[in-house]
């Protein structure tokens, strides 16, 4: 008899609590944003922050809420933007072209002059605290690899000469390196660009000649002799206008006396 009582009590209790749970699940249900979930499934999941949101889920939520424009995801590019547009039921616009980072300097400890011997923390911003770094040229790369540390896809590496290079195939355009770099020598260029200027110095030509063998001296040969190269010298530094067809860029690169127009690869 006693055993029956126990069964009844436990059974009744179970029924009651079960009903309570069922009710709570209905009443306090967390509304899932189906759209955001779907978008999240499409985004690459790199969580690189290139869109400006805290990770892919942040951007997915913003997209679904309509608070962020489509096409901000650099690693996803056009294909992802098109899929997202489908879910949102909007037209896929022309997304901005793919950009990759490029270190605009080929100076190194052999080719360019140093002010002093730096032996502090291995970090570009730490070195920049002391006279803006050990390079006499205050525009150049400090070679301590702060960008390498922040790159989410290991696209940046140091080559055998000590130069810091970006592998454009791996770069997803998140811009983290450009934000951490103290000299702003690493900047974005269009991925389709065949060439880039490997110098960042606004120093006058005479000074550059003295302190660096591979710096742009602002001689304007590229600009004047090869108008179709897209090169234009501003502030003693040549810059490439990538909107230009750049048909003469190879000749210009050959003619550059310090060879600072280099292939971007």
């Amino acid at each position, binding site marked *: 008899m006693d055993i029956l009582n126990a069964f009844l009590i436990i059974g009744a209790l179970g029924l009651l609590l079960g009903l309570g749970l069922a009710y709570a699940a209905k009443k306090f249900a967390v509304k899932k944003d189906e759209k955001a979930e779907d978008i999240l499934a499409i985004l690459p999941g790199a969580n690189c922050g290139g869109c400006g949101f805290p990770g892919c889920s942040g951007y997915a939520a913003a997209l679904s809420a309509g608070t962020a424009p489509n096409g901000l995801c650099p690693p996803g590019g056009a294909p992802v933007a098109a899929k997202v547009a489908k879910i949102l039921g909007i037209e896929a616009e022309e997304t901005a072209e793919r950009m990759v980072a490029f270190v605009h300097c080929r100076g190194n400890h052999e080719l360019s002059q140093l*002010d*002093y011997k730096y032996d*502090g*923390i291995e*970090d570009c*911003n*730490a070195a920049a*605290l*002391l*006279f*803006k770094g050990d390079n006499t040229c205050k525009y150049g790369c400090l070679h301590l690899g702060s960008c390498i540390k*922040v790159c989410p896809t290991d696209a940046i590496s140091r080559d055998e000469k000590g130069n810091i290079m970006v592998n454009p195939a791996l770069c997803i355009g998140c811009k983290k390196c450009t934000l951490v770099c103290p000299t702003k020598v690493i900047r974005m260029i269009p991925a389709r660009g065949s060439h880039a200027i490997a110098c960042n110095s606004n120093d006058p030509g005479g000074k550059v000649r003295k302190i660096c063998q591979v710096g742009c001296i602002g001689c304007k040969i590229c600009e004047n002799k090869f108008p179709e190269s897209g090169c234009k010298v501003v502030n003693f530094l040549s810059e490439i206008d990538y909107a230009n067809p750049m048909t003469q860029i190879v000749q210009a690169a050959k003619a550059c006396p310090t060879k600072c127009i280099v292939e971007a690869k």
Partner: protein
Amino acid sequence: MQRIATFRKGGVHPSDRKALSSSCAIEQLPMPVELIVPLSQHLGAPATALKQKGDTVEIGEKIGKASGFISADIHSPATGTIKEVRKVTLANSVACDAYVITVDNDAEPKQWEYHPFRALDAQEILAIVQDMGVVGTGGATFPTHVKLMVPKGKSVDALVVNGVECEPYLTADHRLMLEKTEHILDGIMIVAQATKPKKIIIGVENNKPDAIQALRAAINMADYPITVEPLKVKYPQGDEKQLLKATIGREIPSGKLPIDVGAVVLNVGTAYAIFEAVVLRKPLIDRVVTVSGEAISTPKNLRVPIGTKVFDLLSFCNGTSRQPEKMISGGPMMGFAFFDDQTPVTKGTSGVLALDHQKEHDAPTTACISCGRCVAVCPMGLQPTKLNKLIEHARYEDAMKLNLMDCKECGCCAYTCPAHLPLVHAMKIGKKMGRK
């Protein structure tokens, strides 16, 4: 036995190496042919230029005007012509405009007349101090007239004068206390007249017994209400916070100033500059600089015009006897390493050191062994090891939550670290990135 005061928390005992120059009387450096006078020699906004290329200037003439509340005037240290206005980088990596002045060597030396000071009231004293461009000469170069302004509703309990000079090598303040004792005391009394403190204390570390004696004798002679407090030798006693703890037993809360605990702190060098400003109406255009270090042929204490190039200082001390491993402006603990001998002396340059090859310096950096020594010596009660790790991982906000901003870069942690970790460098970068 009498208890000798010091601050309690943290601190280290670096070997003081003061014997190299402590017995060298202050010598006047002959006027160099060219001076480089920067417009930013103080904490705060740089001064605005009042002169241009080609203008002639007279010794003591105002050539830069303070450009904000925390800023200071700049005066010409010599008679001559302005050769050019040029961008310079000072030893502390501050880049600013500077006058390059070609000195006119035939100019008549200026006589500074004596002005009585006893009748001046607080307003007048502050105005003169401001007009003469006086800033703290201990290194922080805070404009003195701002420091002496007692905010409404606050009163000064104690005027504490810093004669500690706890940095190794430096002996400029020590020599000043010995050679200009009366003038320093007059300077202190002028400040007392402006701030009306209840008591006046000069803190001197007891490795300078001669200075303590000289000060006491002069105080007795003049019958001034000043006490000299000998302090146990410990670095960084010369810091405001530690000095107040040691002398009047008060602690400045994080982010507050001495005046918030009713104190005004002043360096002996600044007291001397105030004396010259108020009594002689002579602007801050020269200062005493210790030129020392194992690589200097003849270490000296020199009185030099502001704007003198380090090169001129070194040549007067017969140059360096061997290639220095490091040149430092200021003391070895908190000073700045620099590389250019054209760097000028500014109002805050207490010393120029040429250090020899240091063995300790060669020791390789290894991983933190969590020994906790850095925590024990940090006078601000921080955890350098933890901060260092956070900064290494770019977690600047977390580091700020652990009061990174309280770090005053005294160097105790890095000095003591058996793993030779560059802790202060990490703190500096953490602060810079954290502010962003």
